């Protein structure tokens, strides 16, 4: 596998991946999601923060297509604006896990020895830690806020990236071109950055798309437990929490944000599956 061969693959594979109908649906959903994030103020029928106690708990009607919540706020507008928080969760939570986990995996896998042992023990502790407890403690200690809950989720997912990348690195380390580079006297840093990393990354990208959905759900879960977004922000988890106790009397408050989360998770998963199908040589 030469360098040029590695670089030449992605564009062709990408468009091939999108040929599948499932992938197209996934891409469509993700694009719709991004569109919503960008243009929520233009599409949303009402101000998501405006309270109108007199029309509280109204079922879906033409005036309020997804109903109103207990303060009379329009559910549709809140769901639309909530997309931005989900995007933020993906960027911060998933992004942080990817960045930190990859760095850990690269370091441990390539350097080996004591560094590897230490890093892997840290990963073990993080993995063994009851996940909810870890997230709860991080948020409770830093103070509840959306940013802190995203960081907490990022920490929880970091070990998975670390393990994945380390595994990849261990495989690549022994390959011909790396040994050649070392024989030619290239520095460790150069080897890692120009040879090891690019060849380990495709499964990381796949994992990132698949985890994106999971991160949205988990951050919503923390908001649901009261440790994430502060009122009145329309983060989807907060919307779920708002609607939980009204579930038997005003089902729409919790159901629509739940559906939104489901669709986003579905979209990223379909997309990720398609990418994996293309990038994973074993799945041919």
């Amino acid at each position, binding site marked *: 596998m030469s360098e040029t061969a590695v670089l030449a693959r992605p564009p062709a594979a990408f468009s091939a991946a999108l040929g*599948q109908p499932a992938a197209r649906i996934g891409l469509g959903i993700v694009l719709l999601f991004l569109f919503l994030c960008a243009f929520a103020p233009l599409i949303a029928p009402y101000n998501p923060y405006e309270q109108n106690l007199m029309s509280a708990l109204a079922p879906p009607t033409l005036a309020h297509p997804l109903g109103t919540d207990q303060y009379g706020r329009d559910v549709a507008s809140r769901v639309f604006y909530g997309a931005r928080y989900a995007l933020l969760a993906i960027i911060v939570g998933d992004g942080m896990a990817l960045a930190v986990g990859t760095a850990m995996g690269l370091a441990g896998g390539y350097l080996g020895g004591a560094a590897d042992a230490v890093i892997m*023990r840290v990963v073990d502790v993080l993995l063994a830690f*009851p996940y*909810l407890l870890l997230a709860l403690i991080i948020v409770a200690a830093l103070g509840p806020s959306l940013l802190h809950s995203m960081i907490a989720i990022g920490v929880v997912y970091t070990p998975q990236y670390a393990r994945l990348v380390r595994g990849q690195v261990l495989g690549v380390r022994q390959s011909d071109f790396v040994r050649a580079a070392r024989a030619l006297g290239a520095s460790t840093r150069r080897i890692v950055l120009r040879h090891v990393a690019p060849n380990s990354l495709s499964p990381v990208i796949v994992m990132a798309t698949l985890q994106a959905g999971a991160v949205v759900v988990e951050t919503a*879960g923390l908001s*649901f437990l009261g440790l994430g977004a502060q009122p009145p922000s329309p983060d989807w988890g907060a919307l779920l929490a708002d609607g939980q106790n009204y579930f*038997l009397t005003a089902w729409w408050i919790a159901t629509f944000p739940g559906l939104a989360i489901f669709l986003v998770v579905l979209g990223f998963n379909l997309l990720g599956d398609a990418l994996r199908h293309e990038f994973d040589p074993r799945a041919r």
Partner: protein
Amino acid sequence: MLDYLASRLAQLLLVLFGVSVVVFIAMHLLPGDVATLLLGDRATAASLARLRHQLGLDQPVLVQYSRFLIGALQGNFGTSLRDNRPAFAEVLAAFPVTLELTLAALALAVAIGVPLGVLAALKEGTWVDTAITTPTLFGVSMPIFWLGLMALLLFSEKLGWLPVGGMMPVGARMARPTGLSIVDAAWSGQPALVWQAVRHLLLPAATLATIPLASITRITRGEMLSSMHLDYVRTARAKGLPEGRVIRAHILRNALIPIVTVIGLQLGLLLSGAVLTETIFSLPGLGRLMVDAILARDYPVVQAGAVFVAAVFVLVNFGVDLCYAMLDPRIRRS
């Protein structure tokens, strides 16, 4: 062999130590303490001070941690600051509930997910494939309380088939030697009680199963796809073996390793993450105990619980590694 065991044991202890330190630091970073919470709105400065003294919270932090460590090494995790009962006993009492729920959920997820994953792989790329994988995503993306409440609405309220919560009906009297309701009911020798235990477990287990279902289906499907085209499989087919036999003996066998890995990971996840399910279905499990203990700043219980779950998780993964050795002769030899 002995070396291997010794190093795994050392790893276990290191992880437990790490967990306990992290928990200790984190709990003390949390604002507010158990005395404040116990006395709530009606505290007075004097009663707060007195309660803190009684609970040993006015000692310096290092003293508190070393007392905890010494006790933990002897198996004594202290007394719950809320209930005045031994912390470890509380964890041990709650654990069987969560264990039973988790095992039942995993069993359901495997029983449903593996066949579905095989089917999806066999029909890869068709609408059947998508029709199978999409609903399994439902479980991990819909909030579990929504699923649980829908299940309750349908099976408890509308149909009246299954109970609303708890582990056994109110009037049931039986000894509980293990804490696992099905096992205890069987022990009591009354089939009616076993039936009740199963009925109470069914909905929560099914609801919780939706979480690992997605991973198990996906992994099975993925691994099936990977192995289906391998050389030795083609050879087996070329030899004229029936398709079913090929699937079972060769493809699935290979797929089992990652499936077992996922089960191991999910076990840890579910043991501590089942709190929402336990809340909806009113089960007195470890998830609820831990969350309540954190919110109440009941340090001994949080410590006992975290260390216990971490230990279980590491042991389960150890078991998973042993399974690898059994399933893959290549690993065994190394």
